[in-house]
């Protein structure tokens, strides 16, 4: 299980950057692995299962990239709807450009770092990266292109 300070560090990041309340995760347990953290709903059966030899616990929620920690696409797809800031709505054309590896300019009153990418209709895709007033994709490009274009 992740240490309390580790847990606070990760969830407070979500609150500070995106406004996703840290309290939202009170009912969840966070487990740390070498380069990632996983999240599972807490409950009485988790103790029983701890006697088993488990290869994966719950959802892969964060991963370590160098010195930084990045929430996973799936984590953001689930909890991104609770965000109150740092969300950028994009249209299909902008999505296609991101998937081609391009970036596009934005004017945002926001520090550099991760932003939540959502489609115009509110569907949450995952993360983008805001650098020098440009958005870059952090979406799993190959996977999403396979889905959209059948590649």
């Amino acid at each position, binding site marked *: 299980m992740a240490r309390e300070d580790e847990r606070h560090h990760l969830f407070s990041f979500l609150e500070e950057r995106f406004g996703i309340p840290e309290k939202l995760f009170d009912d*969840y347990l966070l487990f740390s692995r070498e380069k990632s953290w996983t*999240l*599972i*709903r807490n*409950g009485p*059966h*988790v103790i*029983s*299962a701890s*006697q*088993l*030899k*488990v*290869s*994966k*616990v*719950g*959802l*892969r929620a964060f991963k370590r990239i160098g010195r930084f920690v990045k929430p*996973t696409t*799936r984590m953001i*797809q*689930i909890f991104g709807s609770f965000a109150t800031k740092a969300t950028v709505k994009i249209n299909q054309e902008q999505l296609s450009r991101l998937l081609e590896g391009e970036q596009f300019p934005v004017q945002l009153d926001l520090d550099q770092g991760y932003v939540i990418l959502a489609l115009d*209709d509110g*569907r*949450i*895709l995952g993360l983008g990266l805001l650098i020098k007033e440009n958005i870059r994709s952090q979406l799993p490009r190959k*996977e*999403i292109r*396979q*889905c*959209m*274009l*059948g590649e």
Partner: protein
Amino acid sequence: MKPIFEHYCEIIPDFRLFQEYLRKPIPTHIRINTLKIKPDTLLNSLKKNGLHLKSSNKKYDTLYHAPGLNLSGNLLEYFLGYVHPQALTSCLVSIALSPRHNSYILDMCASPGGKTSHIAQLTNNTGLIVANELYPARHIALGHTLDRLGVLNAVITGYQAQEFPLKHRFDYILADVPCSGEGRFRKTKETAVYRETRKKVRLPDLQKKILLRGFDLLKIQGEMIYSTCTFNPDENESVVNFLLENRDADLLPIDLGFDYEPGVQEWKNEKYDKQTQRCARFYPHRINSVGFFMARIGKRG
């Protein structure tokens, strides 16, 4: 034209129609994942993009045929985890198990995770699912499916199903066991031939071991589903009969709102317990999906 699975002509009703369906492709079927989206919202969004889904049964608002779609993986909605391509009969397995919220559940042979994620959906991510899969290589696909579909109440283990540790007991168990897969076979190409192998002949022995271990892992008053996608009574009723002979088990009725045939009572000179009538045989020509077998099993108090 030589009939396919000719040796089942006496147990499969309307055998000519059955043959016709074996020469048609299995229709594309999807399950809407309510862990991530409401069915109405998804249906409206797909409709706007020209994709009309056809309800599989009015009783279920998450099960749909997708006639205009060859590969349901080729949708943005797949990436978003809103839908999962899953044969109708595969979906019915988790529904037949009908797990209550906050239960402790074991899926003995879980990869690639379609049924496990459906169980998470039915329990609304409450309780805990132990998704067991022997082969480590399959853990990647299993974990990927569970993550994509937003499952937050599952752990993955890698035990041999027939030797899953007897440390504690479960409220619900799914034993969707390795089988010969006859129900998935379609002769849509001239070259397609169903092949028997020696390995498949050994399956009933493994299936009996898995079912017995599953039953032993069940709490008193707990329930389990034994399922296969084969027509072969040696892998179906015979395995369930073996359980009835060796354990204090009850077969429970299955009511899903779809037509099925009852379990057979005898096969190759072997007579089965009368309770095996309560098993359900889903045939392609009755349900237009993968051929399936299910037994709903209860543990007496």
